[in-house]
């Protein structure tokens, strides 16, 4: 079963555990600036949102690479950067519509999410379930279950799910 990262911004608290887990797994230090997953804070709205590579099937970064330094890991579905092949031309960073491939001037290659070889540390580190690693073909399963539970409970008013703070910690 292929699995994918699922991001649920409404559950994010901005703690950056994911960024530290990612940078530690990839770089051996706690360094949010080197994280492949980023949490964005929208202060005035009071919202946080984690964001990272969705591992496109037709991966534009992979197609754009002139030296074939971005390859498909068939086991995980991740598009992985081969650091020793990458020449740092940055064309992939332009090709990616979502900005999730980034150049690192220290290592002189690009980096992006590689799903940690099939066991992403960000999902393991997230304390609120804002980042989960789910069946790629059924990424809506949990959301469907939540709605199904409401309908099964005979809730007449089909309201939007409860606010984040309540929802999270019932789950935890």
């Amino acid at each position: 079963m292929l699995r994918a990262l699922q991001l649920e911004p409404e559950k994010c608290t901005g703690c950056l555990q994911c960024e530290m887990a990612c940078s530690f797994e990839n770089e051996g230090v706690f360094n949010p600036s080197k994280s492949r997953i980023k949490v964005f804070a929208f202060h005035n709205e009071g919202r946080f949102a984690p964001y990272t590579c969705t591992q496109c099937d037709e991966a534009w970064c992979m197609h754009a690479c002139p030296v074939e330094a971005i390859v498909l890991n068939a086991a995980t579905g991740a598009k992985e950067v081969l650091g020793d092949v990458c020449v740092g031309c940055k064309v992939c960073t332009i090709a990616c519509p979502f900005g999730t491939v980034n150049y690192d001037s220290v290592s002189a290659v690009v980096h992006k999410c590689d799903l940690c070889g099939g066991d992403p540390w960000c999902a393991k580190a997230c304390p609120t379930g804002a980042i989960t690693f789910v069946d790629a073909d059924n990424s809506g399963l949990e959301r469907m279950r939540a709605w199904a539970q409401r309908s099964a409970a005979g809730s007449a008013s089909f309201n939007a799910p409860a606010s984040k703070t309540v929802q999270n910690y019932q789950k935890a």
Partner: protein
Amino acid sequence: MAWANKVLRINLTRGEITDEPLNMAWVSAYLGQRGLAPKYLFEEIDPACDPLSPENKLIMTTGPLTGTMASTGGRYSVVTKGPLTGTIACSNSGGYFGAELKSAGWDMIILEGKSPKPVYLYVENEKAELRDAADIWGKSAWETDHLLHTKHQDPLLRIACVGRAAEAGCYYSAIVNDLHRAAGRSGVGTVLASKNVKAVAVRGTKGVGNIKDPMRFLQATEEGKRVLRENAVTGGGLPQYGTQVLMNVINEIGAMPTYNMRETQFDGAHKISGEAMHEPRPTDHQPNLTTNAACFACTIACGRISKIDQNHFSVKNKPEYWHASGGLEYEAAWALGSDTGVDDLEALTYANFLCNEDAFDPISFGSTVAAAMELYEQGLITAEHTGGIEFKFGSAEALTRAAELVAKGEGFGKDIGLGSKRLCEKYGRPELSMTVKGQEFPAYDPRGIQGMGLAYATSNRGACHLRGYTVTSEVLGIPERPTPW
């Protein structure tokens, strides 16, 4: 542990910037932050120096865990001789600033002397520069944050700064970082402003490492996260209600300081509680609370992010206060609320926004307003002193107006900015000041929680809830409830 082994020393008088190795012998003896930085301070300043003179120094310090994944470890402290108490001040803050400093490769910043003109310190990894602050001096902390982000074209810059209150000499000015986290108590912001330093802006991309056995460290932090997750307070009550989870609890047991600490229960507590922050308002059907938020690495996420009701008198026609920002924590809610007798949640949130916007301590501010209200009741402070404001217990107008005046250092705000001790002395009734060493009591009346009386009396920075917090054992029964006899 995760030290960068480097101290950044800034001589403001001469404009000299040097770096030096962290004293690892002192690290072994004093661990970090509140242990380590006071050692530096004791060794380097004359204990008799005037806190607001160039002879005083101000230290911004991280701890051994700052910048790592250790939950709740991402904090930093400001250590200096404080103007409110005339003794050691040590105020710590969450947010992201401390971790950014460590990530830039610095364990500590020592600011000494006094700059001949307003400056801010800009740190980008190894690079550290004093820059002219003429265009941000006189601005609020929020405006300063915005202007520096714009000037440096760097949204990831982390900024700690003072507001106008500190520039005006308010004795309990804070240093606010990330817009609404604060090294709040004892007037550490007043010291920073006295050195003509408006802000410290940091960008760090080096990361935090130097851990002897990283895998064991990760196991330990994972175990710590599990404990926090499974505990009813840190895993449930705090994320849902914030520290405000305590408002109804402390009120019920009769330890809620009310009306300048004359009483120990507040009738309006339920209206300003953590629970009340979740209730939709009748006017706009939105709750006061927008979301909860975490500081760096913290898996509890007790922070409150609130929006004020746009229909409320305090922000009507003031769209600059309609956005979300740091909401009421328990200490702020108590001091701004029950101590002054104000049970208007929106007014308290607005006053709290102002405390963040211009960086002053809501505990000392609220308590000083409460003392002023008692002095007003007794006729020692009159409308003539207040500029016409009726300073009555329960008046949301008086509270919010006082916050506006302290923020800008104007009018009667100058008196409120003195702190409760100096205010009560000035108006001839020093016994009405609820302080230890000149610092206002926090949110626990010792008549209801006796251990806190001992904590206040013995705390080296004056009355304080963060030194010997017996609330955990006496009220929450963690690890067990002591018998009171």
